[in-house]
């Protein structure tokens, strides 16, 4: 069972990887409150893509689960699940819960 703590660890891991490529003033904090998308985000669109892809790959490597975070539902939600690290973790938890019930 992959719980929220595990998911956050992998998102933080992906943030660490991404920070290695970012200038100091653009680096992200490993915190659930960190804004990823929209007003207040330090990430450009490419940075967000990298973070999502990195998180998908880390989840697959650690837990063997293939999850597509940027699915149709995520892209069409009124409140984007990519708004903060916390909302992203919530969305990943939802996706993993659904896939384990299939």
């Amino acid at each position, binding site marked *: 069972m992959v719980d929220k703590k595990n998911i956050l660890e992998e998102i933080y891991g992906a943030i660490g990887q991404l920070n290695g490529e970012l200038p100091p003033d653009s680096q992200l904090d490993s915190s659930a409150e960190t804004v990823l998308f929209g007003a207040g985000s330090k990430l450009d669109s*490419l940075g967000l893509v*990298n973070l999502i*892809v990195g998180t*998908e*790959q880390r989840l*697959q*490597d650690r837990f063997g689960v*293939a999850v597509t975070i940027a699915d149709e539902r995520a892209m069409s939600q009124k409140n984007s699940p990519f708004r903060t690290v916390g909302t992203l973790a919530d969305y990943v938890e939802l996706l993993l819960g659904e896939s384990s019930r299939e």
Partner: protein
Amino acid sequence: MSERPVMIITGTRKGIGRHLAEYYLARDFEVVGCSREESDLKDPHYRHFCLDVADETAVRDLFTAVRKDCGRLDVLVNNAGIASMNHVLLTPMKTVESITRTNIIGTFLFCREAAKLMQLARIGRIVNFATVATPLKLEGEALYAASKAAVVSLTEILARELAQLGITVNAVGPTPVHTDLIRSVPKDKMDALIDRQAIKRFGEFRDITNVIDFFIHPQSDFVTGQVVYLGGV
């Protein structure tokens, strides 16, 4: 991580894809191929996956295996393709679906998953397959030509979207080559087609590898979004 550069080629069981696999194995690539059916190509540096290129889950599994086993992806060649010679009034829906799935969805899926892997190293080369049937507006090839027109659009736009990741995306547009793809096309149709080329002969495998070699050359990192049609079309 693989010491050899890693190349994925789709549609490697026969025809141009098979030739490409052998050609790049001989040039010290680690080659990962795929097709719906098993391949009889045996080489310690070749690995084959049986899949439908439009099956998202199967395609993701292939890329996961490449990431875990090879740790890198240098080149993707989207060779897999289906053609069908039909008048529009005689084109079955099943043909429409299979051409769309293999030529457009398959190319898109492989580009998307390859870019995810290539962006880790901030370098990569994607080569798609277009066709002279598109610029020649070949009658009887409406759907095939349209599907490859979509591949051209994908190539041109992905070139822009992926440029920041160090990935180039280009396409080669072959003339007819003696393969199964054109086996059912009547000779007079084929002769008429060749007559519209500036250089009036069938294409050969070497014509295609020559263009791919150029696209994937390290010094071609400023070449992207281009479609090279062979034969002077």
